[in-house]
């Protein structure tokens, strides 16, 4: 629970009109049908005592503290489990009820340690509150050990690094168990035993760390006592104030209350509590956002600027003034010698919209070129291209809440329970309610089969064959008469050419079965389900985009959604699950070398004119360099200096050897980051950055939701990142100044039509908005393309399947695919500096048992992983989640450096790297790699060795 309380109505809200009128303690109230008496009372401003009820969970009716009297009803029903009825007359405070409640409280307190003054939950304990509310003055049975048999000697479970479980303080309200079931959907907790022996248990009697618990914190949040308590509260004490801000991990963009102690320089973050009013997360969290914020105060933080002449030199700490002057002078000198286009910058999806905006402005206005790109290049740039071509805008179509209306959910190349866990929990909730599930993924991700969830179809396709699968599904839709003809005829174009293309028997499930490895009957069944089950929603991730046909696949999914009419209402859509917190925003802010903010091409003179007038300088009308182009140009000598904002390209970008060579070839690398990351090893200037707890600005999440990021503490470096960028631009001779971050957003709103209604003041007033947000739509746009597509008509695109050039052969017989896991984030710079390493201390290579056996590899062995471009060593994990011929690893640790082996292959349209398909060989570390035949013999189809 949270000391800094938000209203708790006891039971969840029900949708619908408030048509049921009743009277509670003489107060008239109207609520929707199905509402509990407890919630109706709360809405009337009357708080009924409760312990087992909280409005994030369905009513349970176990504590009996919320009993009420209802005219005409027998006994004293629990108000949490009793639904309202028209004309109902309820009394919540009578002498009889008071006596009953005190009796209940006596029983609770008789088996509870009375150490309130020294308890970590003192002041934040609902049991303590209820003792006061009910007027408990004596416990007739005695208390603690005096009361006879009790649970006071039960031992605490301190296995989890972030919270403790003290069963001696448990009142068996089951809120933790229910939160794990209903909110998180992991079902890791249970009530073990019967009667007096009943106790909360993680799994089958083990510890939390031994159980399936994912440390989302939902149980801690739900606990009304100190039974489940954050260690930080135990160690620091209760927070005294809070600031609502936005998580800086994944693209879900959860809202949190940063609960604090102290003020000014002595401010300490005690805990991060998920915000109930957060539009993206509605009170839920994951292990990263909830607990893994300690990196912000880690001793590795760089707090003082550093410079050096050569990367072989030691760093020299300098003042901000010297660092900024030095950077500006070097950038101008390089331009003078090699041309205006010899320098550029990379923006970060971890930074705020305002920080990103000023970097692209610095490049276009101060550098005088368009050489700005963003790390979205290596994740979701195909989303921008594909959705823009088909729908007319580079963003997902829905809000997260839309999934609650989906009848069939298709997850393609995404692993939401690991990479977008809070949205994954929403999705699982809908699946437990009965929505059907199609998973298209080579791996058996958790969603394929988990408690109360089983995919109707798992299309375990060969890596690199996404387009063949989506075309085959569309072929079934078209040839079996499943097209939503009304939708297509009214709202789409290029239909005839596309239908002729897709109806070709070459695209049939039978024809591509050999390529995809998926039985044709499964593809046909999945296509029929998607097309006929009602609302069908597609959710996808980097398993779609990070392929040589990433953009084609995005267009293929858009085709499928349009053909079946699954666009423009709740429960449907094409939804990218963005990797980092501000991927959407960094793209919106004009980070791509061909686009100004709002996805407007640099060749559009009318758009350039807006900025030229405001910025007072002419802008180039030709695209700049993309990140891979920057690397290539660095190696050929035409590109000489790079400003890198909060991104570790030396670890995260593919073909590490190539990236390192490019960085080493540059005359000047400027890194703005929290830590001396892998890229900083190639840097000549290191500008310390600010953590999300210090930033003032906005993030835009995967559902286009613009959330405020509020400073919880002062910038530990003494400067906001946008200030540093502005000062560099000014030192280069280009005037660039803002009084605060709000002014930057004002400029964004002034120049970008889809943001024209956005301001910090508006966000502070309404909480958050989803763009487009305009004066005409001040509340934003949760669902896009409702009455028509942004581009007018949705455009069907012909999407031929073209195999990747990356092929397995005798020398490299396996296909490696990469991804992420729950506890770590991206290159791990943040999460590796938290206790999250307890779950994932190193990257491992997952292998199918057959592939391991034929190579003599046992679980836990160190193995060499080699591709055509490099090799690395890591530990093997034998896993039947993997198909034969495919292995998997993560890229969270620089030691193993998974990207040493990934290649330069990329999406044809956007150059997004093909991280998901690399032909590799795996050998025990002791084996001689020279023994592997060097002959290159391409096998038929990728991914089967």
């Amino acid at each position, binding site marked *: 629970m949270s000391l800094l309380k938000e209203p708790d109505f006891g039971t969840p809200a029900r949708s619908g009109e408030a048509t049921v009128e009743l009277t509670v303690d003489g107060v008239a109230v109207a609520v929707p049908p199905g509402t509990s008496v407890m919630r109706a009372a709360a809405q009337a401003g009357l708080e009924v005592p409760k312990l087992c009820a909280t409005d994030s969970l369905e009513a349970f009716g176990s504590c009996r503290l919320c009993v009420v009297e209802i005219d005409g009803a027998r006994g004293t029903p629990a108000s949490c489990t009793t639904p309202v009825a028209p004309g109902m007359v309820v009394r919540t405070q009578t002498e009889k009820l008071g006596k009953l409640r005190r009796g209940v409280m006596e029983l609770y307190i008789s088996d509870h340690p009375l150490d309130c003054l020294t308890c970590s939950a003192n002041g934040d304990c609902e049991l303590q509150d209820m003792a006061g509310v009910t007027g408990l003055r004596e416990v007739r049975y005695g208390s603690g050990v005096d009361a006879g048999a009790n649970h006071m000697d039960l031992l605490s479970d301190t296995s989890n690094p972030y919270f403790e479980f003290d069963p001696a303080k448990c009142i068996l309200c089951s809120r933790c168990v229910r939160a794990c079931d209903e909110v998180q959907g992991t079902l890791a907790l249970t009530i073990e035993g019967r009667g007096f022996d009943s106790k909360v248990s993680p799994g089958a009697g083990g510890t939390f760390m031994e159980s399936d618990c994912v440390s989302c914190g939902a149980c801690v949040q739900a606990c009304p006592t100190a039974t489940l308590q954050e260690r930080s509260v135990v160690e620091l004490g209760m927070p005294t104030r809070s600031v609502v801000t936005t998580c800086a991990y994944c693209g879900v963009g959860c809202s949190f209350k940063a609960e604090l102690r102290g003020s000014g320089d002595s401010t300490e973050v005690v805990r991060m509590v998920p915000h109930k009013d957060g539009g993206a997360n509605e009170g839920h969290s994951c292990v990263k956002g909830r607990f893994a914020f300690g990196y912000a105060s880690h001793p590795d933080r760089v707090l003082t600027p550093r410079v050096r002449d050569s990367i072989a030199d030691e760093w020299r700490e300098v003042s901000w003034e010297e660092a900024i002057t030095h950077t500006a002078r070097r950038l101008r000198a390089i331009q003078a010698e090699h041309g205006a286009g010899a320098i550029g910058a990379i923006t970060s999806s971890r930074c705020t919209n305002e920080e990103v905006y000023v970097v692209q402005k610095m490049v276009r206005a101060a550098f005088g070129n368009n050489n700005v790109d963003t790390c979205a290049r290596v994740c979701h740039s195909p989303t921008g291209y594909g959705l823009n071509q088909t729908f007319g805008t580079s963003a997902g179509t829905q809000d997260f809440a839309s999934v609650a209306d989906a009848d069939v959910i298709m997850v393609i190349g995404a692993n939401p329970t690991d990479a977008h866990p809070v949205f994954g929990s929403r999705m699982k909730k809908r699946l437990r309610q009965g929505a059907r599930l199609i998973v298209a993924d080579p791996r058996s991700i958790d969603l394929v089969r988990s408690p109360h969830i089983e995919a109707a179809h798992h299309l375990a396709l060969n890596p690199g064959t996404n387009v063949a699968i989506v075309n085959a599904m569309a072929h079934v839709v078209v040839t079996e008469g499943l097209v939503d003809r009304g939708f297509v005829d009214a709202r789409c174009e290029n239909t005839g050419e596309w239908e002729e293309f897709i109806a070709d028997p070459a695209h049939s499930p039978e024809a591509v079965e050999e390529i995809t490895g998926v039985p044709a009957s499964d593809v046909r069944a999945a296509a029929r389900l998607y097309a006929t089950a009602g609302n069908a929603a597609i959710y996808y991730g980097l398993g779609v985009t990070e392929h040589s046909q990433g953009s*084609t696949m995005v267009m293929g999914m858009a085709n499928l959604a349009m053909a079946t009419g699954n666009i423009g209402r709740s429960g449907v859509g094409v939804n990218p699950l963005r990797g980092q917190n501000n991927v959407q925003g960094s793209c919106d802010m004009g980070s791509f070398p061909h686009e100004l903010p709002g996805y407007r091409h640099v060749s559009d003179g009318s758009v350039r004119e807006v900025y030229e007038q405001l910025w007072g300088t002419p802008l180039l009308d030709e695209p700049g*360099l993309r990140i891979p*182009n920057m690397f*290539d*140009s660095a190696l050929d000598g035409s590109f000489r200096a790079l400003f890198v904002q909060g991104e570790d390209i030396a670890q995260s970008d593919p073909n590490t050897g190539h990236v390192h060579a490019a960085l080493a070839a540059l005359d000047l690398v400027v890194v703005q980051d929290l830590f001396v990351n892998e890229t900083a090893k190639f840097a000549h200037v290191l500008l310390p950055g600010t953590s999300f707890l210090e930033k003032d600005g906005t993030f835009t999440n995967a559902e286009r939701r613009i959330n405020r990021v509020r400073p919880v503490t002062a910038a530990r470096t003494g400067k906001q990142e946008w200030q540093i960028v502005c000062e560099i631009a000014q030192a280069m001779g280009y005037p660039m100044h803002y009084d605060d971050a709000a002014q930057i957003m004002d400029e964004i709103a002034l120049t970008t039509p889809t943001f024209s209604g956005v301001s910090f003041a508006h966000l502070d007033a309404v909480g958050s908005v989803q763009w487009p947000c305009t004066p005409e739509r001040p509340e934003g746009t949760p669902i896009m393309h409702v009455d028509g597509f942004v581009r007018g008509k949705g455009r069907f695109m012909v999407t031929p399947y073209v195999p990747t050039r990356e092929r397995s052969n005798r020398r490299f017989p396996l296909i490696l695919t990469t991804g992420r896991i729950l506890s770590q984030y991206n290159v791990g710079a943040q999460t590796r500096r938290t206790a999250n390493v307890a779950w994932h201390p190193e990257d491992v290579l997952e292998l199918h048992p057959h592939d391991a056996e034929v190579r003599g590899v046992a679980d836990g062995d160190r193995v060499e992983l080699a591709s055509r471009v490099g090799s690395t060593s890591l530990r093997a994990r034998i896993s039947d989640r993997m198909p034969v011929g495919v292995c998997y690893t993560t890229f969270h640790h620089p030691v193993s450096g998974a990207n040493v082996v990934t290649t*330069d292959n*990329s999406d*044809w*349209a956007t150059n997004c790297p093909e991280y998901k398909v690399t032909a590799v060989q795996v050998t025990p570390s002791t084996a001689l790699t020279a023994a592997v035949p060097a002959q290159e013999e391409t096998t038929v189809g990728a991914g089967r060795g």
Partner: protein
Amino acid sequence: MDELGPELRMVSDIVVQFAHRPADDAAAAIAAHLTRFWHPRMRHRLVAAVDAGADVDPVVVRVARMLSPAVPAP
């Protein structure tokens, strides 16, 4: 093909995506794509490589011809 420069590798990746279209249509679409997304220096290099006799798909030659007059100086 990489020894000839990344531009030829990238354009060959694009050409195969348009193989279903008539050569002239494909070349026009590819030229438009490169104009929209490629830095002028890269387009120049592509044109220069084709002019130098690089062993490329005939569609790439058509693309280079379409780009040639329009590519601004790097």
